[in-house]
């Protein structure tokens, strides 16, 4: 069985940045991870009651999108610009 460690960069914005007390974090994920797997891991132990949006490499991603080595993953609340 082949296993590798994949470094990714995780970003948080707005209320999630405040909730986690950081805007950025380096993570290593193993094997096949979806963006939702990453979210479950980083949010474990936090009470996140609001809707969370995902992006991979600055494009919106679905919960089941796969994350690969070197990706920039971001988590943020619904957008409120304009």
């Amino acid at each position, binding site marked *: 069985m082949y296993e590798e460690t994949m470094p990714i960069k995780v*970003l948080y*914005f*707005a*209320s999630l940045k405040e909730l986690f007390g950081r805007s950025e974090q380096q993570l290593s994920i193993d094997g096949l991870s979806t963006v939702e797997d990453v979210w479950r891991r980083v949010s474990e132990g936090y009470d996140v009651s*609001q809707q969370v949006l995902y*992006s991979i490499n*600055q*494009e*919106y991603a679905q919960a089941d999108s796969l994350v690969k080595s070197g990706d920039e993953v*971001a988590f*943020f*609340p*619904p*957008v*409120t*610009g*304009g």
Partner: protein
Amino acid sequence: MIKITNNAFDPWQELSTFQLEMRRDGEYGACANFIGTMRDMNEGDAVNGMFLEHYPGMTEKHLEKIVQRAKGQWDLLETLVVHRVGELLPNDPIVLVAVWSAHRKDAFEASRFIMEDLKSKAPFWKKENLSSTNQRAEKNRWVKKNTSGY
């Protein structure tokens, strides 16, 4: 052109300058534009100020994508999108979307399309600083969700 700026901007000055510099004299018959401005009230509360956060990189890319989609759907000559970030005060312009075309239908529809997509998908977040006269626990609150414009 897409501009994200930390500084207060004057929409009429932006429009005037861009229109001169785009060098389309005689070509455009229509310009439709929209300016969103910070109000001093929201959801019944007096607002003192606002912080506008964005996702540098993704925000610009997303706006570029919206504009390209609009250009595929309508016959447009030029587009200008300016969005403010950072600390804002009431009456500060937040966003400007402008579209130039030969005929008015394209300009009207594309400007609204770009604006609605921006409001619902472009990664910006507003945090309001409520007035001290509000009898509430939280003095700062993230705006939860934009309302639909349709």
